[in-house]
């Protein structure tokens, strides 16, 4: 933590960055995002087990961009989000400095190639618990899967917190706000909620970096991250690509391989 504060201070003092996006003490023993713009404020920064929010959602916001170059206190998932944003041409080289606290000390990653190296090294893939959760649903009979997800989707209040929390959901106009034609029913009934969750999962297919911020943000506890999980693993097994490990990779669904499977096509 001292290392983090020192480094934040020196980055701000040298003018390398104008803002450090990190965590600070919030209320009720929780942490909250902090936007440190002056070296003297750097002592408010903290980093511990409570710091799980993916802060990579902030650097693209116009009001944050306006502040100048940013340093981002990142979890490994946030690091992958930064790389994916780079691959999608949303962040330029040098625009974000990643401060990655690790058990061996703070790592400062300035270039995309350093970030790629670190992301590839630290990537572990889905945990056994997560795999068994997905497996538990996937192996149910179809009708039971439908029941399960309808039960989940019917609790959705359409607050779009899953979208707001996601670093990759950066479209300035989202398809749910398009009303000519109205693709997705607005009301939070079972039908509109299911369509929303399918669209969200599909628009993140091949882009989701597995930070699970969507599930954490959901106020009613829908495990929306499992939808992303299924598509992420399908894309990894079918096309051999994973988002968030490269700053230059192309989007899995905007390319193709002549050998892609087609055993389901007549």
């Amino acid at each position: 933590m001292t290392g983090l504060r020192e480094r934040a201070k020196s980055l701000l003092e040298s003018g390398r960055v104008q803002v450090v996006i990190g965590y600070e003490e919030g209320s009720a023993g929780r942490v909250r995002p902090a936007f440190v713009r002056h070296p003297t404020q750097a002592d408010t920064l903290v980093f511990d087990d409570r710091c799980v929010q993916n802060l990579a959602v902030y650097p693209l916001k116009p009001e944050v961009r306006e502040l100048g170059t940013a340093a981002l206190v990142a979890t490994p998932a946030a690091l992958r989000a930064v790389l994916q944003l780079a691959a999608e041409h949303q962040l330029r080289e040098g625009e974000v400095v990643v401060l990655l606290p690790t058990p061996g000390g703070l790592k400062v990653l300035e270039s995309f190639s350093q970030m790629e190296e670190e992301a590839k090294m630290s990537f572990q893939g889905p945990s056994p618990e997560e795999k068994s959760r997905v497996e538990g649903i996937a192996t149910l009979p179809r009708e039971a899967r439908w029941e399960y997800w309808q039960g989940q989707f019917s609790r959705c209040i359409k607050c779009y917190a899953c979208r707001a929390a996601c670093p990759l959901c950066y479209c300035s106009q989202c398809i749910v706000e398009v009303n000519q034609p109205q693709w997705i029913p607005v009301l939070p009934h079972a039908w509109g909620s299911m369509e929303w969750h399918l669209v969200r999962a599909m628009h993140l297919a091949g882009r989701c970096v597995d930070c699970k911020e969507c599930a954490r943000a959901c106020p009613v506890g829908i495990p929306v991250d499992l939808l992303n999980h299924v598509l992420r693993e399908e894309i990894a097994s079918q096309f051999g690509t994973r988002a968030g490990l490269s700053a230059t990779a192309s989007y899995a669904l905007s390319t193709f391989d002549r050998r892609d499977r087609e055993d389901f096509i007549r």
Partner: protein
Amino acid sequence: MEFEPKIIALVCTWCTYAGADLTGTSRIKYAPQVRVVRVPCTGRIDFMYLLQAFNQGADGVIVSGCHPADCHYTSGNLHARRRWIVFRKLMDFVGIDTRRVFFAWVSAAEGAKWAQLVNDVVATVRQLGPYEEYRSLIPAHARPEVAA
């Protein structure tokens, strides 16, 4: 009264639409329960179209276009194929009845294949019955009128 399935077919204009035309000019009779929607290319078929078809009261959906290497736009069908691989997985995971979604390659020369495909699809969906499960989600005011 016996259940007559409603089938929506999303087809590309260059291959399957022309193929379906050939079915007609070849005087091949096939099941009349299919409604054809012509799009420029299978690459143009957003996954939302499939959901929209079910919203509009379809009991089954056919998605069909040019064979690989036959695409008028070189690779639209290959992009589409990837999208379908992924979307099928998602539909399956959330319990949408993927037995009602049919993917095919039908070229402009395959009039007989088109007839066979539609006949097969109609027979399969007739067995499965109306897709009430999906329709029951749609609130009454938005439910399409499913005429017999």
